């Protein structure tokens, strides 16, 4: 068996190493399971140590002989070590989960808080629980956004420069309603349109903003 705490450390290293990568790294279910098994193992031996310690204290004369006192002290130290390892592993697990949640939250907002449009390469790196979280969070965000329809909370957090932008169509969008009428956005055509009308398409990758 590997050293105690090793796998927990690996989780943290994994999170740190991939913190800058554009796509969330695959979920390390194997490591998480190892850490959990280790914690369960540690906490059952912690229970045994505590029970042994209680037994020694109960059967000792008072005041305890020096040998008994030393034994109790030894068991106390062992119990402390176990308890600290468990606490540390819990911290590592939660830090790992929290780190991924934060990344997912950012991803949801990057897609303008939008629907179920999480890209496939992110989706397949999620654990089932994380997919549930994303679904719940997306629902929460759209509920909150619904309270401020006028300002479109999902739009990019970049200060507006121009009312109109030049865009090139990367994928066919069909006919799109704008404030001043309908436009047919055919692949490879270029248009000069109101930014607010086409921003969702830019975020979704259908159009490219030409500087």
């Amino acid at each position, binding site marked *: 068996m590997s050293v105690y705490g090793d796998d927990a450390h690996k989780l943290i290293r994994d999170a740190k190493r991939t913190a800058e990568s554009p796509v969330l790294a695959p979920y390390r279910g194997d490591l*998480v399971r190892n*850490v*959990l098994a280790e*914690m*369960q193992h540690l*906490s059952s031996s912690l229970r045994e140590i505590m029970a042994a310690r209680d037994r020694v204290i109960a059967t000792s004369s008072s005041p305890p002989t020096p040998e008994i006192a030393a034994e109790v002290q030894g068991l106390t130290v062992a119990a402390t070590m176990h308890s600290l390892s*468990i*606490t540390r592993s*819990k911290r590592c*697990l*939660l830090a790992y*989960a*929290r780190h991924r*949640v934060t990344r997912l*939250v*950012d991803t949801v*907002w990057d897609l303008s808080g939008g629907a179920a449009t999480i890209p496939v390469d992110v989706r397949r790196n999620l*654990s089932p*629980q*994380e997919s*549930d*979280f994303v679904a*719940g*969070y997306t629902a*929460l965000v759209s509920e*909150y956004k619904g*309270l*401020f329809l*006028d*300002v*479109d*909370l999902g*739009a990019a*957090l*970049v*200060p*507006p*420069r121009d*009312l109109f932008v030049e865009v090139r169509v990367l994928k066919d969008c069909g006919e799109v309603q704008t404030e001043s009428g309908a436009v047919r956005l055919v692949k490879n055509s270029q248009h000069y349109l109101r*930014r*607010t009308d086409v921003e969702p398409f830019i975020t979704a990758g259908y159009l490219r903003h030409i500087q």
Partner: protein
Amino acid sequence: MLAGSLSPSPDDDDHMDTGPTIGTATDSTFTFSLNDDNDEDDTTYFNDDIRSLTQWWINERCAPELLMYQADLVESLMEMMEAQAGIIESKSSDTPDSAFLVVLYQQEMERIKFIIRSYLRTRLAKIQRHTLHILREAEYRSRLSIDEIMFAEKYQELLAHHFQKFALEELPDYLQRLDDTTENLTMVSRPDLEDAVFCRIKEQIGVFQLESSDEAIEMRPNNIYFLRYNAIRRLMEDGKVDLV
């Protein structure tokens, strides 16, 4: 009306003459200048709501903790924008001049929308960072809008459920808590009020004793200091200093 906000006024060029450059963890390359066109150097806002909200927005972005929600400002600006949208619709854009005006109106509205959007999103980001702390402390809780309380509570629920399913439910009961405290380490993350901030003095304050230091400084209007947030927190709440 917003129409007034585009007229230049030379006596106000000390306000916002340099666009503040702000970066946070949420969007690292964020720059915003209130006058990004050279010929708008002395743009002023006749309507104080816009100026106030802009300052609250900047404060919110710079302060480590969540500030009071400016419900009145947000509401009145939302109402104003609705009225403005009506005016734009009624304006014809037949002549080049009026068409140009309509563009200016619309541009102005986009900018206000941006500030409101960014303001609300900055607050959401902070709420998500310190959810449990904010929900538990009565003082922070009172700074949230009703909608934000809803958001925070549901978010906390989601998080707790996720952590539970992720690992905690397989552990013994005593390890399932999300708010353990060991010595001086707590699982509930809170804002770092000792963080350093830049601030600009708005009115004559005189000699000011810095908290947790023997140093006193004389604060004159328009001086800019780089101080611990804790030291100037109350001054900012009283509107005597702005964060920049």
